[in-house]
């Protein structure tokens, strides 16, 4: 029987594909690209928040932020491991990130200017990530799906702590309220771009849906996110920066204004406010950590040598 047919039958029956199973090269490549991009996003995603650890307003907020950033490192590692099961090495993935060959989510190329940004990132950026990620928990590729389940469990705290930051600011002084609104204004549009291009401009989506790597289209997920946020923002007594945003009674969903896809393309192609800074920070961390990695290898080799017990009946052949 044709392996491609067996493979597609498994997918159609919702049987997961595991590392040793036969899979089309294109499926493997699509997943390597998607999972590694996802992993890179988690790793680069630590940077905008890392900037605020030393400046968090209270000890509680600082502890929370450290835990969140640590989670993101963990999420990156789960995902790198999942991608490695497909036959790419960790080093190759890191090289691809540093050379610019592999992309990461464009959202992390925006700066985090105020403390309120920590709230907006948690609420909007992590919120959008959750909407994107929950369906991937049922992805046809076993290791990716399992990594996603783990990630989604942890991600919900990220969104809730973000909303709580904004809620606190929204009940504060006039200055704090303004800071809250300003952060929402800056993060809203980049967040809804996180769902990717419109469906008619997303040529690979159909194949990914057929392979059950993707379960919902970009536009479906974006709409779901907007509908949720448009309600949640009312609790903050803030507004979303979209004059066209209004409830559509017939469609039972929110209508929203046009998205600036030029900006999206620009940022993806390296011209966002922080692209260079983010990559420079990653490369610096990797290069300056090289001696630690080498030292660990050397130490492990030495220990191994030291613990080698002599054979009980050894014969000296030199005699």
């Amino acid at each position, binding site marked *: 029987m044709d392996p491609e047919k067996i493979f597609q039958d498994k997918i159609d029956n919702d049987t997961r594909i*595991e*590392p*040793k*199973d*036969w899979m089309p*090269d294109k499926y*493997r*490549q699509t997943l*390597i690209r998607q999972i590694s991009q996802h992993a890179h996003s988690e790793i680069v995603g630590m940077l905008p928040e890392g900037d605020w650890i030393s400046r968090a307003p209270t000890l509680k907020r600082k502890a929370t932020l450290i*835990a969140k950033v*640590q*989670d993101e490192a*963990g999420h990156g*590692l*789960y995902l790198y*491991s999942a991608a*490695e*099961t*497909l*036959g*790419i*090495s*960790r*080093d*190759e993935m890191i090289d691809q990130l540093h050379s610019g060959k592999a992309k990461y989510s464009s959202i992390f190329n925006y700066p985090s200017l105020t403390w309120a940004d920590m709230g907006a990132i948690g609420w909007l950026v992590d919120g959008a990530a959750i909407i994107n990620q929950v369906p991937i928990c049922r992805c046809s590729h076993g*290791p990716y799906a*399992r*990594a996603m389940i*783990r990630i989604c469990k*942890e991600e919900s705290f990220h969104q809730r702590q973000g909303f709580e930051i904004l809620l606190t600011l929204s009940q504060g002084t006039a200055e704090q309220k303004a800071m809250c609104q300003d952060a929402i204004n800056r993060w809203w549009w980049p967040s809804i771009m996180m769902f990717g291009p419109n469906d008619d401009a997303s040529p690979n989506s159909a194949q990914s849906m057929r392979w059950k790597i993707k379960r919902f289209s970009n536009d479906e997920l974006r709409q779901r996110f907007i509908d949720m946020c448009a309600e949640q923002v009312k609790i903050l007594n803030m507004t979303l920066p979209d004059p066209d945003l209004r409830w559509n009674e017939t469609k039972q969903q929110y209508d929203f204004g046009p998205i600036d896809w030029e900006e999206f393309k620009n940022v993806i192609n390296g011209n966002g406010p922080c692209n260079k800074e983010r990559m420079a920070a990653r490369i610096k961390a990797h290069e300056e950590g090289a001696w630690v*990695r*080498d030292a*660990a*290898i050397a*130490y*492990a080799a030495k*220990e*191994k040598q030291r613990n080698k017990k002599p054979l009980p009946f050894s014969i000296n052949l030199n005699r």
Partner: protein
Amino acid sequence: MNKLVKKFYYGDYGDKENAASLPPDALAAANGNSWPLWEVFIRSKQGLDHKHAGSLHAADAQMAIENARDVYTRRQEGISLWVVESKYIHASNPAEAGSLYDPANDKVYRHPTFYDLPNELKHM
């Protein structure tokens, strides 16, 4: 792209040398000077089995345990960890799953429900 697809998968690293059809030395060279891969197993609570949780890179067993604690047990997921270098794990071949597990299917007499007994019979 072919360069990327070296076909070493976790869970069957012991077979990896064959799968990649490269001699072990060449494979080690291809992997560069990177830390080896380890599989992580977690016992979630006393009395339960260790269960596979995922994998990670570490220079040695001690580092693998420490990394596993940081990566896989940040929220009380476990009380005990096992780590084993992935290359020591051998796995069955999914292509042979049919012939390997099928014979159990036609031996229904191995199951208690196969035996027809009167309803009056209690405690059995």
